């Protein structure tokens, strides 16, 4: 599992996760992921386009992050999940809890509340 930082600015956090977001993947990147997302308190885009699969441990990490950001009124978007990953989010009932988008420009607008 790899965490890629795409942008960290005053107005935005944009990161990408790469690989399987399973228990091993979460153990590998959870601390830096939370540090670069939840702890920054900024509107956040998490690119999931290269996440090959996601288990409940990965979902738990995303829920924790979304909850932390929600407490400071910062929005979080999950960007471009592969179809099976999106199906898993739906199976967990999270398709409405998270903003899941497939267009980068739209994600930017929505996360900034435009």
């Amino acid at each position: 599992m790899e965490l890629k930082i795409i942008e960290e600015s005053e107005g935005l956090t944009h990161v990408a996760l790469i690989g399987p977001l399973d228990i091993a993947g979460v153990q590998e990147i959870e601390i830096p992921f939370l540090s670069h997302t939840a702890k920054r308190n900024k509107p956040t885009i998490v690119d999931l386009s290269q996440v090959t699969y996601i288990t409940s441990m990965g979902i738990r990490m995303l829920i924790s992050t979304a909850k932390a950001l929600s407490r400071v009124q910062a929005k979080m978007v999950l960007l471009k999940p592969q179809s099976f990953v999106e199906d898993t989010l739906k199976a967990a009932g999270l398709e409405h809890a998270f903003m899941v988008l497939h267009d980068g420009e739209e994600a930017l607008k929505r996360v900034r509340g435009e």
Partner: protein
Amino acid sequence: MTGAGRMSKSIRITIKNDLSELVRVNETAVAFLAEHPLPPRAEYALHITLEEIITNTIKYGYEDDGAHDIDVQITADPDVVLVRFEDDGREFDPRGAPTPDIDKPIEERQIGGMGIHMVRTMSDGITYRRAHGRNILEVRISAGTS
């Protein structure tokens, strides 16, 4: 170990009740899938099933801190993948586990409790029996479509 019978292929692995063993399970599954490719949906559901069931057993299945064996067998037939788990943990039938409240807003969501629900949703059938003090769980995943 691989075997064949009526065109089925199977592999069996015995692990200890330690979450670090999931790496070995995953490596075994990846090697098996390299040799016996499955449709993407079945492959995906297999990964989810392995991790969620084993994690649940290791985290909640035992009343003591001792070492226990968990047997995992994956059998791939042309139309179905059968994943069989056998352990000597406390009796637990995942078919009866409560469904998490997935309609709550994210702020009110309990973290955890999703794994069994995900397996029930993504698989195509689960059978369970208790025999000789052991849980025997079989998860069926359709391999007929991608």
